[in-house]
């Protein structure tokens, strides 16, 4: 290790702390930034992602709200139109359904409906994903709903580094933006620079290079795809794993460029397969790279059922490295080892 490397060595932070640090730095950097939501103040957020902010910034900038998702998003929208930079928290992604009018009919559309005269620099943070025994109303991955709405931007960071950089980019972006974290990854640690930095919106990251198949993972499925790639490498299959990081706008270019080299693609997400974002990605791949495909684009997702409570059923429900590996083998027409 060189001296320079030592100096720039970055700390490891858990995902939740990366959120807290990003928000605190944003608030120090810009007086227009405030946080509002259920339990964000006194309690520091149900996932502790806003811990300590009330003490530093006071109740006008760290606002404990009633349990009123529509009014929380509306508060952010109205304040954003007036020039502030609100971060509003809808703790579980499932609860966004309660606020859908304010998200879809109001925040997303004001600029267009008003002929461009309104700007809505609103950031909504929320946490998605199953695997915690939280059952059907606290476990969903509903990103496809949001990506379908013109006017919204949607991000799904999967590392603490990306979380901090994308959250900063989201708050500085002058559009209504939803940042979707993964509940099961709150404790996942990774290197996070102390200074403020941004991850560009709409730019995917190739997490692993490979020549045989392109695997696009969404959210926690990026990590599962990386495990699958490790396993498949032992079988002589080289996966190129791509994390889009931003779902709307979607970096089709990076995905298509990869598929043109690998001739195979598999898309994996935790959301229900039918109508999931994977369907859109698969469609874009076949539109842009049809002649390069040696097989149909594989789609890995949850079955068409609500998230079950029983840990046994939930384990069957949520895709993982093994189901992704199976999907890759199927796309390549390869049998599983030992079968």
């Amino acid at each position, binding site marked *: 290790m060189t001296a320079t490397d030592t100096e720039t060595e970055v700390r490891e932070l858990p995902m939740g702390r990366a959120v807290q640090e990003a928000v605190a730095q944003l608030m120090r950097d810009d007086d227009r930034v405030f946080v509002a939501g259920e339990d964000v103040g006194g309690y520091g957020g149900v996932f502790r992602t806003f811990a300590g902010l009330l003490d530093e910034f006071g109740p006008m900038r760290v606002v404990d709200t009633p349990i009123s998702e529509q009014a929380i998003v509306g508060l952010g929208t*109205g304040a954003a139109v007036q020039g502030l930079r609100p971060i509003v928290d809808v703790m579980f992604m499932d609860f966004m359904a309660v606020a859908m009018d304010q998200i879809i009919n109001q925040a997303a559309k004001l600029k267009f409906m008003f002929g461009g005269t309104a700007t809505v620099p609103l950031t909504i943070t929320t946490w998605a994903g199953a695997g915690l025994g939280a059952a059907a109303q606290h476990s969903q991955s509903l990103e496809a709903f949001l990506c379908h709405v013109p006017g919204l931007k949607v991000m799904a960071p999967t590392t603490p580094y990306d979380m901090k950089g994308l959250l900063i980019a989201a708050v500085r972006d002058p559009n209504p933006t939803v940042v979707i974290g993964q509940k099961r990854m709150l404790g996942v640690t990774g290197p996070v620079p102390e200074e403020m930095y941004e991850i560009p919106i709409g730019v995917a990251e190739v997490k692993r290079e490979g020549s045989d198949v392109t695997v696009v993972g969404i959210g926690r499925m990026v990590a599962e795809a990386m495990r699958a790639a490790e396993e498949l490498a032992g079988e002589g299959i080289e996966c190129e794993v791509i994390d889009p990081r931003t779902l709307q706008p979607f970096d089709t270019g990076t995905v298509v460029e990869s598929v043109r080299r690998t001739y195979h693609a598999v898309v994996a997400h935790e959301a229900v397969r039918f109508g999931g974002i994977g369907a859109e990605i698969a469609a874009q791949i076949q539109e842009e790279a049809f002649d390069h495909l040696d097989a149909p684009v594989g789609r890995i997702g949850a079955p068409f059922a609500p998230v079950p409570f029983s840990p046994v059923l939930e384990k069957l429900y949520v895709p993982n490295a093994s189901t992704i590996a199976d999907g890759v083998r199927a796309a390549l027409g390869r049998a599983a080892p030992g079968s």
Partner: protein
Amino acid sequence: MPEPTSEVLLDLHHRMVRIRRFEEACGKLMEAGKLPGFLHLYVGEEAVAAGVCVNLTDADQVSSTHRGHGHLIAKGGDFRKAFAELFGKATGYCRGKGGSMHICDLELGMLGANGIVGGGVPIAVGAAFADKYTGSDRVSVSFFGDGATNIGAFHEAINMAAALQLPAVFVCENNGYGEFTPRERTQAVADIADRAIGYGMPGAVIDGMDAVAVWEAAHEAVAHARAGNGPSFLEAKTYRYYDHQGIKGLGVSYRDDAEVLEWKQRDAIEKLEAQLREAGVLDDAGIRAVHDRIQAEIEEAIAFAEESPEPDASDLLTDIYTDRA
């Protein structure tokens, strides 16, 4: 109670006649097949928007409803841009992209008509939050109908405004009908203002057909909010002369003719004009001159709108996202 000066009376009258003339012209244009889409006319309810907005500055904000032209005009809206928007023209308030149900003028603090019943109330509360946050003395007024007081967003937003003690005024335009259904069939509460106590804020019932009464009540409520004393609630009992949509709607009868006539006999503009005459502020000729002047502006604005260009095909994909500076 504050006494309205003759200046206030003239201002009320001017705003109300502007709304009435605008809306009557819209109705005629719609019946002539010249306006695309839906049209929810404010005729009959003018005293509410005018009575409140005379108390506001351009910097104060209002959120509006699907029946929103009255609020725009009461806030000082421009006839040309308004008609052009209703025609869907490129010169309209929203460049033809919003139409009647999304008409807005952010420079006048008019945060948009809204196609979702109750949908504007949380946004007005957000604007009020921004006012408090920035330490300004601005006030945010939310207009909504009796029907909106049954929707969740309304309850959530008004409760939040009270909990956070925001500079907001909630103005319920109770016209007795949620679309085509009488209010009594959808609410058990006699006066909607009774609900104010449940949110921990002052509430009052006012005669929405009496511009001076609305002005007086709004004067207090706005001053209360501006002074940092938190939100309050006004229920203005009023009536729309025309159908929920357009002039005659689908022609289905759901109101007694006698009922409509009874309300029209209490017309707020005629009442105010009687007060103007009595106070010696305006005589018949003076009143006629106000109407004539505004009517001439209306006709000029309609001509402007009709002659204006349609949006360009390229406009379809603009104004969706804001580029970062």
